[in-house]
């Protein structure tokens, strides 16, 4: 019906993994600030796949200038509509970045992400590495610091490597490297003797790696330990004794669904030695 409708639309923005800009023209009666404010109302709300926000080109364009809105993972643009494709909470970062914070355990390789991989095979010039995705990634012999054709790195089947994706899309086999663009290792490479590797959800990993991570801060107060966090959900922990390593591993696995309050209580109890 072309008649006037005074119905509020919920706006959900859908994007693929790349950033996408949308120019929002105000709909007839709604001004742009109106729409954005509806959108802003949704920040922090749970959205489900299938939620649609539709932008319709109005007949008359008012004089407010179009603004750019940047969309992150979990949102996808479909012509004039924006669709939510993952269930989760809508998050916002200044000035104009929106994304869906979702919780899942299955990892999909993304370019530039640092992951923990397990070497499964050596063949020819490359290693085959399992990163938890649908395909095994390849890691060249020469992608280590100081590696040459004669000086091969000391890597065995079953070792852990911390490396970065240089190619990771759905059409090609993913590729890893253990050096950065300057040729330095920068913390990457083979590691892992003596520690414990376990798997957590991707959401927890992102929370651990966030710049002001509360979980990491709470953990630091317990006892000294080494930790390597891969974006594919794998975490490696090493502490002085086996008991302490097991404690850290179990704490991390269990604080996934806890609120900050519950987590701090749990950590305090463990620090007091009651568990």
């Amino acid at each position, binding site marked *: 019906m072309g008649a006037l409708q005074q119905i509020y639309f919920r706006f959900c923005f859908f994007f693929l993994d790349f950033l996408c800009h949308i120019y929002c023209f105000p709909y007839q009666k709604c001004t742009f600030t109106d729409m954005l404010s509806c959108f802003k109302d949704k920040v922090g709300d749970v959205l489900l796949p299938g939620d649609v926000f539709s932008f319709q080109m109005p007949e008359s364009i008012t004089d407010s200038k179009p603004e750019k809105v940047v969309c992150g993972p979990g949102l996808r643009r479909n012509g004039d509509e924006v669709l939510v494709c993952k269930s989760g909470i809508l998050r916002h970062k200044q000035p104009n970045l929106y994304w869906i914070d979702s919780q899942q355990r299955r990892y999909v390789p993304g370019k530039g992400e640092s992951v923990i991989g397990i070497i499964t095979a050596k063949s020819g010039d490359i290693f085959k590495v399992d990163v938890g995705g649908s395909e095994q990634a390849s890691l060249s012999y020469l992608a280590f610091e100081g590696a040459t054709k004669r000086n091969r790195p000391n890597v065995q089947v*079953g070792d852990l490597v911390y490396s970065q994706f240089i190619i990771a899309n759905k059409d090609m086999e993913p590729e890893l490297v253990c050096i950065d663009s300057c040729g330095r290792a920068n913390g990457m490479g083979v590691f892992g003797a*003596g520690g*414990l590797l376990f798997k957590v959800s991707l959401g927890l990993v992102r929370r651990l790696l966030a710049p002001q991570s509360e979980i990491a801060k709470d953990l630091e107060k317990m006892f000294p330990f080494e930790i390597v966090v891969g974006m594919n959900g794998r975490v490696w922990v090493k502490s002085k004794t086996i008991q302490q390593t097991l404690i850290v591993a179990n704490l991390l696995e269990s604080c996934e669904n806890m609120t900050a309050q519950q987590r701090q209580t749990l950590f305090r109890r463990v620090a007091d030695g009651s568990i």
Partner: protein
Amino acid sequence: MRDTPLSNCERDFLLKAIQETKRLDGRQTYDYRSIKISFGTDYGCCFVDLGKTRIMAQVSCELITPKENRPNEGLIFFNIELSPMASPAFEMGRQSELLVKLNRQLERCLRNSKCIDTESLCVVSGEKVWQIRVDVHLLNHDGNLMDAASIAAIAGLCHFRRPDVGIQGEEVTVYSTEERDPIPLSIYHMPICVSFSFFQQGTYLLVDPCEREERVMDGLLMIAMNKHREICSIQSSGGIMLLKDQVLRCSKIASVKVSEITELINKALENDKKARKTGGKFGFAESLPQERITALKTDVSHVEMSDVKEKANEIVQRAEVPPQTVPSPVLTAPGTGQVGEGLENSWGLEEEEEEEDETVELKMELEEGHEEKGKGDVVVISDSDSEEEDVVILNQVTTKEKASSSNQQGAVASKQQQKKKKKKKRGQ
């Protein structure tokens, strides 16, 4: 999909931890993970959670001809399936070694121990016996599949009820659940498997290994026992050498564990029976805790109501005229009738009316009495226009009710009901 490979550091860590008698989840050496048993709505459907390992068993039965060399005994058939949702290593339709091993062990544990009385499953010797079929599905694999499968199978068998059977002379009647309560199987004892995993050439022992411990173990010892301390089967795999006192020690541990687990199963069966008797909620849906993260939430939407009346009138005026209904049938030509469009069906109208009256009376008679089989008083109408092949109308003159078994009675009653419904539809 391929399973995640085990890295060297994990293996070293696990072995070192076991040497210090530490397990990944903080259990002691002889501790089981928490076992949770729940039953579904059907009799014989059982879910078992052993930590994160999850298994479902379903028991069903059917009548078949027995084996020739054992005409008095019923049959039991076991089938374990490894569903691909349990682990990325399992593929649908492929018979892996693990699957064959599990199937063999379950059969040996439950069939060879003669825990179920197969002679009570006999209905007519040499002709009809019950075949009990136990299907076990693995839903999540986190180690120790055999224990969970045996608990699920035996709990399902104890929970199962088979239909009651009545034998009178030559005739065998199988009563449905509505007619007579189904009866449980006769189970002598409950054999349960307990698994022991060995590490470092038999130096270290763990009970109920989880999936990662299973990957680094050297060998596995499975003891199936019942609570009367009778061993039903022992199997050792992995090729490790075990000493006599090790095996004896394991059997002692197993007897303790088995009595605990048997008590747990009995308690679960009791709870389920109580819930069914008192009419409380039971079944799989009730055993899951309800965790809502988001209720049905919609935003406030304003609906404009100012011109609703005019709009409604407009719509009514513009709508099509409803089809006209005619009270009496229209016969356009002899032998034809008009059906549909609100008119009555004129096919065989007069006959239907007569039959309808008869059947109404008959139904009342039938509902009152109990019956025996009598074929002599049955009249077959061959020129009726109903879709059933032969319409059987029982003689209403004789006072003694003659009807066959309850199934036929039910069929006749339902035929009458169908006719009634047809009549009602046409009349509208």
